[in-house]
């Protein structure tokens, strides 16, 4: 069984067609590489063959990339000496691609050889673009939806099959940077403009055939004598400035937290100083170094494999038939409701957007109009598309319009009484089988469900703000929530192309349960006199998009104060000591409500740009003479979240560890390099985690006490992904 077929025709063109069985897009496997190699050998050795075309049997795409499951397993399969196994394996890939590139030319004179063209019907990603890069000319179908590029960096690795070395030599380090360091993808027209590909054509196959038979020059610039890197190699004056700047950019943008970007840059720099084949060897050394870093496997596992599994319904009740949403009712046209209406309309659903009067409802609908206008200005949308979207949304105060809805999402004021009243009123109108969901972020679903006549059809669908940007949706099962409601919520989330996690009902569910202690730890440190810069910078250096103080400004101080008061009221004497509350109440009283007030922990200019910490903070809480080490601040910020994730798992709030990790990264940007909180514990090892938390608890208090589960796992030396492996659970 092979994914490649070779066909030689009367004109002397050998066509190698790639068609991975059972996949909508080609993905490369180890076997595939070996087959491709054999066919290239065959065609090069056959005197009747004048040239070769490599193409895809898939409509609209060349290839989606390497099978990431294969990369994840490569390490394990590499045997006793993984570095050597991986190095040899990757060098074999280089040998195949280099064979294509040299195509039988004489190594000294560059004479001879056969032209090899790549015909790409569309999308070409990762190895699916590295193969074309090794060919002599690329012909891409005029397919504006196609995406071309090297997105490896997004999952914690970098292009390791020559893509890094070839693109830098083709474009120069500066021009190649956005494609390598940011994984920027381009449509064919832009890809041609940037020099990634050679031709965009209405009939790429015909053009490629003509080219192959035209006896073209096939020597790559870097195989010519006197080749000079565009923009200059590192010790050329212009190149020096490029490389100087590149390290600064990579370091500051990654905050030093993503090893892959640094390894990529080292491969580029060291490779730029040596001949091409040596550069490939260097690329391999750094690529293998990246694969051996636990961060890359954790990122691939969470951000690719497990994220996709959750999106495809890994935790969906299997025996419930398709619950696709046709007509959705959104209650409350505030910021959340308006966003939910927008994403639902985008997914093609009929939307009824309800608020107490027509003006309020219209305002919510206008959010979609504004959003689409921005898209039109950026040429991402058209006026027709906007009209189509707006036509799907009915904004009205009239609950009767909800008739015929199959899903309701309630996003009204966070007050149990208001919500209960809405639930009753709406249930009187909607069909009996309609699922009712609440977008509450703080109120227990089980309690809210008490207002429902059909609690088994009542569920939590918790969005994050802003709805259209945030990738995660947290689905909360109340005590009585039934399987059909869960399936409905999951099918809905799939329709709006977001990633779901499903958790059981408990205070703050999963995500907020972890975020709140993180913020509180930051607040507590302020009250101890820790430098605010140190607190937020420590978080950023861990790979968090924002530090706890900035996060507090973004989410607003009064919301934090409100949650603190409500939680205190609900928990009574069980409420843990929290010096951060005093700080937050004081900030609220001072009117420092956060970004929305242009005044919070930070000061802001007229345009809302942060200009620095508010000096009033330092007056109220002067800096302590002795500042803690960066590491200690980081440990406190990290464990304050991670221990909540462990407790959520321990208490059965989180049922699948994949959800704990994927959810943390997507919901609040938890250190993506770590693969998520539980992956991070596996990375540092549970024995060490247990030891450190015990030490932190002794120094800072019971909130850092080692949860029983972690202690037990530490004693046994267990890892989360072994003990709670999803496959093992299924088998059991």
């Amino acid at each position: 069984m092979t994914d490649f077929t070779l066909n030689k025709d009367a004109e002397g063109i050998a066509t190698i067609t790639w068609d991975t069985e059972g996949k909508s897009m080609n993905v490369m496997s180890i076997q595939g590489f070996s087959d491709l190699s054999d066919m290239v050998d065959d065609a090069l050795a056959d005197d009747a063959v004048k040239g070769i075309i490599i193409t895809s049997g898939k409509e609209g795409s060349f290839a989606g990339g390497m099978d990431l499951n294969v990369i994840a397993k490569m390490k394990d399969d590499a045997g006793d000496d993984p570095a050597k196994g991986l190095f040899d394996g990757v060098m074999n890939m280089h040998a195949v691609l280099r064979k294509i590139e040299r195509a039988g030319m004489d190594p000294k004179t560059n004479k001879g050889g056969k032209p090899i063209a790549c015909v790409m019907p569309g999308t070409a990603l990762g190895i699916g673009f590295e193969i074309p890069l090794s060919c002599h000319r690329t012909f891409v179908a005029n397919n504006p939806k196609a995406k071309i590029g090297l997105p490896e960096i997004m999952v914690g690795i970098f292009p390791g099959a020559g893509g890094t070395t070839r693109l830098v030599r083709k474009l120069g380090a500066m021009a190649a940077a956005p494609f390598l360091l940011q994984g920027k993808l381009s449509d064919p027209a832009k890809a041609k403009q940037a020099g990634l590909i050679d031709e965009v054509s209405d009939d790429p196959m015909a053009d490629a055939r003509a080219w192959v038979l035209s006896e073209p020059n096939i020597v790559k610039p870097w195989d010519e004598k006197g080749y000079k890197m565009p923009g200059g190699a590192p010790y050329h004056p212009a190149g020096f400035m490029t490389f100087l700047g590149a390290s600064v950019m990579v370091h500051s943008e990654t905050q030093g937290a993503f090893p892959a970007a640094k390894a990529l840059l080292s491969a580029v720099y060291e490779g730029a100083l040596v001949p091409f084949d040596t550069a490939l060897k260097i690329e391999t050394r750094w690529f293998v170094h990246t694969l051996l870093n636990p961060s890359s496997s954790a990122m691939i596992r969470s951000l690719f494999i497990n994220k996709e599994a959750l999106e495809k319904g890994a935790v969906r009740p299997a025996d419930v038939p398709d619950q696709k949403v046709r007509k959705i009712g959104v209650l409350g046209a505030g910021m959340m409701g308006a966003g939910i209406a927008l994403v639902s309309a985008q997914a093609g659903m009929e939307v009824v957007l309800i608020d107490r009067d027509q003006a309020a409802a219209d305002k919510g609908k206008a959010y979609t109009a504004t959003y689409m206008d921005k898209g039109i200005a950026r040429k991402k949308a058209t006026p027709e598309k906007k009209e189509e979207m707006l036509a799907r949304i009915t904004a009205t105060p009239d609950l009767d319009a909800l008739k015929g809805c199959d899903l309701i999402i309630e996003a009204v004021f966070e007050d149990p009484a208001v919500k209960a009243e809405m639930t009753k009123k709406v249930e009187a109108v909607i069909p009996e089988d309609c699922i009712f969901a609440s977008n509450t972020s703080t109120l227990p679903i089980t309690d809210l469900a008490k207002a429902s006549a059909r609690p088994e059809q009542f569920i939590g669908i918790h969005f994050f703000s802003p709805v259209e940007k945030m990738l995660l949706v947290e689905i909360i099962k109340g005590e009585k929530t039934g399987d059909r409601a869960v399936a409905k919520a999951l099918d809905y989330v799939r329709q709006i192309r977001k990633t779901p996690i499903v958790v059981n009902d408990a205070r703050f569910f999963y995500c907020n349960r972890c975020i709140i202690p993180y913020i509180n730890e930051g607040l507590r440190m302020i009250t101890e006199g820790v430098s605010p810069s140190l607190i937020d910078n420590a978080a950023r250096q861990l790979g968090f998009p924002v530090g706890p103080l900035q996060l507090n400004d973004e989410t607003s101080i009064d919301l934090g104060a409100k949650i603190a008061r409500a939680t205190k009221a609900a928990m009574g004497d069980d409420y843990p000591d929290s010096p951060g509350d005093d700080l937050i109440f004081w900030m609220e009283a001072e009117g420092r409500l956060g970004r929305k007030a242009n005044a919070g922990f930070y000061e802001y200019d007229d345009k809302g740009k942060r200009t620095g910490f508010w000096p009033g903070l330092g007056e109220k809480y002067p800096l302590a003479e002795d500042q803690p080490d960066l590491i200690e601040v980081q440990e406190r910020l990290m464990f304050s979240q991670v221990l909540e994730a462990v407790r959520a798992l321990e208490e059965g709030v989180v049922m699948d560890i994949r959800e704990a990790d994927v959810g943390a990264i997507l919901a609040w940007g938890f250190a993506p390099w770590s693969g998520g909180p539980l992956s991070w514990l596996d990375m540092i090892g549970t024995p060490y985690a247990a030891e450190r938390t015990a030490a932190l608890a002794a120094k800072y208090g019971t909130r850092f006490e080692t949860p029983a589960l972690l202690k037990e796992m530490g004693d046994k030396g267990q890892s989360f992904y072994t003990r709670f492996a999803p496959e093992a659970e299924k088998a059991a």
Partner: protein
Amino acid sequence: MTEAYIYDAVRTPRGKGRKDGALHEVTAARLSAVALNALKERNNLEGHAVEDVIWGNVTQVAEQGACLARTAVLASDLDESIPGLSINRFCASGLEAVNVAANQVRGGAGNGYIAGGVECMSRVPMGSDGGAIAVDPSIAIDNYFVPQGISADIIATKYGFTRDMADAMAVESQRRAKAAWDAGHFSRSIVPVYDVNGLPILTHDEYMRPETDMQSLGALNPSFKQMGEVMPGFDKIAILKYPELERVNHIHHAGNSSGIVDGASAVLIGNKELGEQLGLKPRARIRATAKIGTDPTIMLTGPVPVTEKIMRDSGMQVSDIDLFEVNEAFASVVMRFEQAFNVDHDKVNVNGGSIAMGHPLGATGAMIIGALLDELERSDKELGLATLCIGSGMGAATIIERV
């Protein structure tokens, strides 16, 4: 242990390190030869009079490449039997040459050495020798590389030095340098530069701006703000390394940083026998030498730990020292030194420094040894310490004592 003595010290005037600078027409080998020939003439260095010429030089490419030390010997009137050793410890190269020579003598490797250095900054631009630390990602990222100007501004931010404080120090450096020249304090060491026909090219330090005041400095823009805050954004690297800082205050500019100049200097160092052979009287004893590595990001705080080390090693106290030369690479470097040891500015750089007269990288270390020695003699004091901050995070120091 054998003692190492200083018998003589000379330096050329410093020319502006630009195309219109007076020394721009003079090659590095010839400028070196000016200093070497002066030592030869003043001290009768005939034949194999010294073991080696240890020559500090930072940018060792083009005409400063290929072991400039040996080229300089061959370009001078010294005998060809004297070899040459080029060394590079960035801004302290000249001082390191003195220290290496002293320690060779103390260790018994011959009677005498010439130590010194040269830098023709107008001819061989600073940084034109490349360097992996700035551009090799594995090194630059792991070590939080920033250029020196950013480091100087980090020092100012971390230790609380304001622009006004730095400017005041710069004004004082200019005032002191002018006063020293006017009073002839440098006359014993200065060796004018003449052309091949004996016509003068430069007889005085050319870079000085004695008219400098707070107002004129106030008009200057900070030199490192753009590279720090915008392109490529070095401040972010500074904050990664020093996360307790919210931002970097960019206080340094052309007027409160050392000047880019051309110049050379040379010191004759030897044991007692050398003096006896040549009929010379030792002027000072080299009491102690030290060098150390420090954090490469803040980079320029080296004078503090290296001074602590030299005191520890020699069993001395900072309070024993009568006069200090702390190279004025940037105002904040000197301010940090004075802050750390609570040393009064009246004892530091009393005849002005690199802010006023310029900093010819490879030569400066030996120049400040000469300046320190001259001033100890003039003011009849005993002990002096010379120290410099150094690129990539190092420090070097020397203590001399009059005999």
